[in-house]
């Protein structure tokens, strides 16, 4: 060992000492230039082609544009009509709201398989004769509360009961469907006379678009804002990206997890209102396999299933791609099996592309 003082021997003028502790080793003005001097190394902003790759979601937008071209070529008369666009958006709205919640959960490092079932349960609960007797507003509140409540249960089981998210929400999926069947006696419950306000969400139009599309837009905007502009959003990325680091930084990871699932449940409740509006019914069969569509949309949108990375905009683009494909198949009169095969392929291609871009960035 050469010196008890440390790894480097003090050299030269002790006069620098007088400047105070921090100044002691501050590089002098010409050395500060190091940063700029090494400009040849940190080659500033990358050039155009590289920057194009950085435009977020470029691939998704391109895919969507491609699908639009396919639509214009194969079914020129029916695809680009106003009514078709409206129907695409209306179709996307319900799962879209769910997708926003699912994006939060997945960025936070979890997964929610119960979304479709919870939506069904909320729709059933809100359309029982007892609930309906209080009028449409109570129905809405009921749906939202049931959704959020189911989400809270999920979150609590996962955060404090230490169940794996996959298991906890799978259990909720089964149980919520069961409860919905029980409450409705497996019958489809119509929205009663006097409560048409709910249905008006789908029939009333503002600037050509049904109200439920605005609800969808509102949820997306709210989701984006929360994820990108609030502490809640930041913490979501942290909790999903590195839970141990989040914990040691003083974030209450468990409580945050509960809120994430509650948020997802809340979105299911809102989706339940939208589906009641569209179908004028509450039913235990609503939302079958929505969880798969929502998760697929999130993944196509570039959110990592392992958490810590992703975006709302990506998820919504992913969802629109899915919805447009469905629409194209219907307009072209192709059968639904082919449609499923096409969707499966798209998921694989999207993930492969993402893996490539992940690798090139590390």
């Amino acid at each position, binding site marked *: *060992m*050469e*010196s*008890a*003082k*440390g*790894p*480097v*021997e*003090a*050299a*030269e*003028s*002790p006069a*620098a*000492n007088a400047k105070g*502790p*921090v100044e*002691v*080793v*501050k*590089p*002098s003005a010409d*050395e500060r230039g*190091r*940063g700029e001097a*090494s400009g*040849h*190394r*940190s*080659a*500033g*902003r*990358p050039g155009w082609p*590289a920057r194009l790759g950085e435009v977020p979601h470029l691939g998704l937008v391109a895919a969507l544009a491609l699908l639009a071209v396919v639509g214009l070529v194969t079914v020129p008369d029916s695809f680009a009509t106003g009514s078709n666009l409206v129907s695409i958006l209306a179709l996307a709205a319900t799962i879209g709201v769910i997708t926003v919640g699912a994006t939060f959960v997945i960025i936070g490092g979890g997964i929610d398989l119960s979304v479709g079932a919870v939506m069904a349960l909320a729709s059933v609960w809100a359309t029982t004769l007892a609930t309906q007797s209080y009028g449409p507003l109570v129905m809405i509140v009921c749906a939202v509360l049931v959704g959020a409540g189911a989400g809270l249960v999920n979150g609590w089981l996962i955060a404090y009961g230490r169940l794996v998210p996959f298991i906890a929400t799978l259990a909720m999926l089964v149980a919520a469907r069961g409860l919905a069947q029980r409450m409705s006696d497996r019958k489809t419950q119509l929205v009663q006379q006097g409560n048409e306000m709910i249905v008006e969400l789908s029939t009333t139009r503002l600037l050509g678009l049904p109200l439920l599309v605005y609800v969808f837009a509102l949820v997306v905007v709210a989701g984006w804002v929360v994820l990108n*502009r*609030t*502490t*809640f959003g*930041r*913490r979501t*990325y*942290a909790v999903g*990206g*590195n839970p*141990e*680091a*989040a*914990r*040691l*930084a*003083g*974030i*209450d990871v468990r409580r945050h997890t509960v809120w994430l699932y509650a948020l997802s449940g809340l979105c299911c409740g809102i989706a339940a209102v939208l589906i009641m509006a569209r179908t004028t019914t509450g039913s235990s069969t609503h939302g079958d396999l929505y969880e798969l569509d929502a998760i697929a949309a999130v993944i196509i949108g570039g959110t990592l299933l392992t958490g*810590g*990375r992703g975006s709302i905009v990506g998820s919504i683009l992913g969802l629109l791609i899915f919805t447009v494909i469905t629409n194209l198949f219907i307009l072209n009169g192709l059968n639904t099996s082919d449609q499923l095969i096409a969707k499966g392929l798209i998921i694989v291609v999207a993930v492969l592309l993402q893996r490539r871009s992940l690798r090139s*960035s*590390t």
Partner: protein
Amino acid sequence: MSENSPLLLMKGIVKQFPGVRALDGVDLEVLPGEVHCLLGQNGAGKSTLIKTLAGAHQPDEGTITLGGEPVRLSSPIAAIRLGISTIYQELDLVEGLSVAENVFLGHEPARLGFVGQGEANRATRALLARLGHGEIRPTTQVGRLSPAARQVVSMARALSHDTRLIIMDEPSAALAHDEVDNLFRIIRELTAQGVAVVYISHRLEEIRQIGDRVTVLKDGRTVAVGLPAKDTPTRQIVSLMTGRNVEHVFPPRRDGPATGEEVLRVEGLTVPGVFADVSFAVRAGEIVGLAGLVGSGRSEIIEAVYGARRFSGRVVVEGRPVRRGGTTGAVRLGMGLAPEERKAQALLLDQSVTRNISLASLGRYSRFGWLDRRREAEDARALVETLDIRPPDPDRPVKTLSGGNQQKAVLARWLLNGRKLLLLDEPTRGVDVGARAELYAVIRELAEKGVGVLLVSSEVPEVLGLADRVLVIREGTIIHQADAGDLDEHRVLDMIMEGSAL
């Protein structure tokens, strides 16, 4: 091949990352049987260079010659087949697998496709014994091991191949003093057999002890080749590395004992099986150092104080008790912890430097949950400058920074928001000499402003140079307390080693 023809020759290696030219024409020449040290500041390109050598990165330009023949190292497997094995700076073990499975990952001893687990375990046990760590069981899950033990495992992995060249990227950063000696013993064994070692470290005294020749990198270029490791003056090496002279490593201490209020009082702190009945206090403006071997309970004490572990006993911060097992409360009480393992315990690798820095002080930038991102960015930028994080771009994902610069980002997180008590676990791990001095100065300045600091370091000189008061820990008990000025390195080393089996 004659005795003196180089084993490895790298010429004009260039590696460009998006936005950064990490290597800009590097030359490296390694002779058989020598320990060749690679020196350079954080971000100079050392790890990138050895990754091109390990087949983990493909160089954009340049040639690599191994044993006289030009080679292309297209993948890590290709490099291993050619006899190059690597111990990476950031540990790359699979936590869910056992020690033996990790050691033989990718080249499992197999018969008819069945993994010969017994054989792997036996071979692993032999390797670990050779490394002086017979106590690590081959069947233990790696996730349960301490950082130091993991380092030993990755060393065993490197030794499990037939190699001509072993690359070690800061192998000693996670090791305590006695373990470094052990490491050196193994390096000497290897070089005696003609194996060459490329050794990276920021601890110059190690270079002196083990190195034969030194290559210095600066800003992605070779600035000096083949300097004699033993007797090139420190000043010359440092100025080659940094392009300037580092005046003082440690800032001057304040005179006299600390008289501030007590910020931390620990009484009878016990975590069964790890440490017992630990009591001490830290005053405002005081830096208290914990000296001890890895495994002596230093990190665990710090984690318990922070509430990250269940404990019995009392921890009081400014008169208010810390709850066991809840870090949120600790942060609210004004504590901050820079943990030992930056990657696993501190960083959000995908996120920007800014977001990593502000993580623990989001509350400060928000109003009703709404973030003031401009203020956040301003503060982060200021810290990037103060700590000289390079490249000085707060929007870069943290994973693209070099190891030492990542460490600075971890510290920056706690410098940001007025902490009353900072718990620093190996704060300068992997930080280069120049930047260390800057960090020390920042820590001292914080203390001068009234922050209490509890510091853990494997480097005794660091504890003695920076701390006001030192607690010496052995096997989970405090065996000595004294002012840092009254201790010297040898005495402290004697105390922490005495009675330990090694």
